[in-house]
C-alpha cells in the first residue's frame, strides 16, 4: 500500500523485500529530511557561535525530542544516541557493567538473545570473574519464566533479554520479566528493543526496564544511528563510555569533568543528519499509526503462516502468530536455507538464511540455520505469493521426494 513512498521498492517492481528484520527500506521522507539538513543546516552541533551551528544544534535537539516522545520517554536527556542497538548494549556492559559487576556475581541472559545482547555480557563475566546463566526456552520458542525464576537470585546483577526475538519473532512479556527480577534481586534489566520499536507502540517508561536499546535503521531510519534509553539515576552514576569532544565539561592536564546527560555519553561530532532522518522516520510511522503498522503485519503474517503451513515438508519455528512480531522462521525438508535463499533470490524474493546472530538459540533447536521472512509496512499479499511460489520452485528443483 505504501510501496510508492519507498524509492528502492518503487524502482524495482519485481523485488519482494522480506528482510526488514535485518534492515528496513527508507521512505522518501527520510531521504529528503537528511538531504535537507545537509543543504540548509549543516554545521557541527554544539560548537560554533554562528547561526548555522545553532540551527544544526536545534535540528539535532528536536530530533531527540521527537524520538523520545515516540518511545514513551518523558525525560529526553535520558535518550543517548549511539550507532545502534549493538553499541547501546556495549555501552551498558562496558560502563555500568565494569563498575558494578565483580567476582561471584551472576548475569542472566536468554537463549533467545541476539549475539549483541549475549556476547558483551559473556565477555564482561570473563573479565570480572562473574558467571553467565542462560534462561532456557519452552518447546514452542518462548522464554521459560520458571527457569528465569530459578536463575534470578540475590547474586544476579544484570538480567538481559530481548523484547522481540529477531530469529523467531517471539514477543517476550517484558513487564512480567521486570516484576520477576525486582521480586528476587536488585539486578538491572537490559532490554534489546531492536525488533520491537519498529513494529508496535513501545512505552519505555511504562515497561519499567532500566535500559532499552534500539536501532533506527530497522524502523525506516538511516543506518548508523540508534539509541539507549536509561534510568537517569543510573546514567548519572555511570562513567563515560568513550571520551573526547562534547562529552567533557572542564579538561585539566591531569583530570577532566563530564558534561551533563545526554552529552556525557556522546563523545565526538554527533550524527545529526541521521538523527534528523530518524525523526522523519518516526513522523512517517506516526502518520500511519503504530496500531495500523501492527495490524498490517499481523494480517500478512497470518496469511504467510497459513500458506506456508500448506507446503509439505515445511516447518515453522516459534510460538503462534498472535505471540510473534513480523517474523516467520522456517526450514524445508533437506533443502538448506542458503539454497532456498538463492532460489528465492532468483524470483526476486529477499529472505535471510543463516543463524540470525543467535547461535546459542540455533544450537538448542539443533539447527545450523533457518530461512527467515520478515514483514513491514511496505509489504503486501504479492510478497507472500512470491515467497510461496519461490518455495514451491525450490521443492521442484530439489526434486522433493519423501524420505
Amino acid at each position: 500500500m505504501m510501496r510508492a513512498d519507498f524509492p528502492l521498492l518503487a524502482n524495482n517492481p519485481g523485488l519482494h523485500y522480506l528482510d526488514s528484520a535485518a534492515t528496513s527500506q527508507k521512505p522518501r521522507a527520510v531521504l529528503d529530511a537528511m538531504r535537507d539538513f545537509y543543504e540548509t543546516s549543516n554545521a557541527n552541533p554544539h560548537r560554533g557561535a554562528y547561526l548555522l551551528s545553532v540551527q544544526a544544534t536545534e535540528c539535532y535537539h528536536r530530533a531527540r525530542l521527537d524520538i523520545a516522545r515516540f518511545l514513551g520517554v518523558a525525560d529526553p536527556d535520558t535518550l543517548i544516541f549511539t550507532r545502534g542497538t549493538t553499541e547501546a548494549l556495549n555501552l551498558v556492559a562496558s560502563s555500568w557493567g565494569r563498575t558494578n559487576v565483580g567476582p561471584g556475581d551472576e548475569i542472566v541472559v536468554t537463549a533467545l538473545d541476539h549475539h549483541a545482547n549475549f556476547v558483551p555480557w559473556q565477555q564482561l563475566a570473563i573479565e570480572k570473574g562473574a558467571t553467565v546463566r542462560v534462561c532456557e526456552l519452552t518447546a514452542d520458542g518462548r522464554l521459560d519464566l520458571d527457569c528465569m525464576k530459578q536463575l534470578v537470585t540475590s547474586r544476579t546483577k544484570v538480567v538481559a533479554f530481548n523484547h522481540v526475538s529477531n530469529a523467531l519473532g517471539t514477543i517476550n512479556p517484558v513487564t512480567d520479566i521486570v516484576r520477576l527480577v525486582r521480586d528476587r534481586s536488585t539486578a538491572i534489566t537490559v532490554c534489546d528493543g531492536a525488533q520491537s520499536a519498529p513494529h508496535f507502540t513501545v512505552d519505555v517508561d511504562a515497561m519499567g526496564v532500566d535500559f532499552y536499546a534500539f536501532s533506527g535503521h530497522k524502523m525506516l531510519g538511516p543506518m548508523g544511528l540508534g539509541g539507549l534509553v536509561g534510568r537517569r539515576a543510573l546514567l548519572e552514576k555511570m562513567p563515560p563510555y568513550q571520551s573526547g569532544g562534547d562529552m567533557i565539561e572542564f579538561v585539566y592536564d591531569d583530570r577532566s569533568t563530564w558534561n551533563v546527560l545526554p552529552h556525557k555519553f556522546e563523545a565526538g561530532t554527533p550524527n545529526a543528519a541521521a538523527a534528523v532522518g530518524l525523526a522523519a522516520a518516526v513522523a512517517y510511522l506516526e502518520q500511519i499509526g503504530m496500531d495500523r503498522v501492527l495490524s498490517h503485519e499481523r494480517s500478512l503474517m497470518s496469511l504467510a503462516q497459513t500458506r506456508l503451513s500448506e507446503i509439505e515438508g515445511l516447518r515453522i519455528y516459534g510460538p503462534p502468530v498472535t505471540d510473534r512480531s513480523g517474523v516467520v522462521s522456517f526450514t524445508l525438508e533437506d533443502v538448506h536455507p542458503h539454497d532456498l535463499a538463492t532460489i528465492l533470490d532468483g524470483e526476486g524474493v529477499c529472505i535471510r538464511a543463516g543463524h540470525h546472530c543467535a547461535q546459542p538459540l540455533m544450537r538448542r533447536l539443533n539447527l545450523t540455520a533457518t530461512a527467515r521472512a520478515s514483514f513491514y509496512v511496505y509489504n503486501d499479499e504479492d510478497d507472500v505469493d512470491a515467497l510461496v511460489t519461490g518455495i514451491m520452485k525450490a521443492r521442484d528443483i530439489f526434486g522433493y521426494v519423501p524420505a
Partner: protein
Amino acid sequence: MSRPESSAEIAALYQEMILDHYRRPRNKGTLANPDATAEMRNPLCGDEIDLQVSFAGDKVGALKFSGRGCSISQASASMMTQIVEGKSTTEIDSIRTRFRELMLGDATAATDTRLGSLRALSGVARFPARVKCALLAWNALDTILVNRRG
C-alpha cells in the same frame, strides 16, 4: 540494481549431479588413522567440513569428510574427495588452481576435462555469495597440504 539470476542460471547451479552428491555424498565418514585433519567453518551460514587425509608417499592415499551445510558446500566436498584421491600433491595443486579459476567464472576452466565432474559446479561463479561454499572443502585440503610442506 541488476539481477543476474535467471531461471536458467538457477537450473545450471542446481544440476542433478550436485543434488546427487549432496544427498549421496561420496567418501563421507572418518578414517581410522588419518595422517592429517582440518576443519573449516563458515560462521556466516554455519557450513561445516571436517577433512581427514592419509598419504601414500607423495600421493593422497585415502580421504574422508564429515560435515553439514548447503548443497553446494557438501557436494563440492564430495566431488573433491573423488578427484584428488590417489593424486600427487603437485597434481592436486594444479587442479585446485584451475577450480578456483572456475569459481571466478573462467570460461576455459568450464570446459577443461582435467576438472572432471567438478565442472558441474561452474554455475556457482554466477552467484558470488555462494563461491565460499564451494571452496570450503578445498580450503580445508589446502590447510592440510600447506602444513605437510612445513
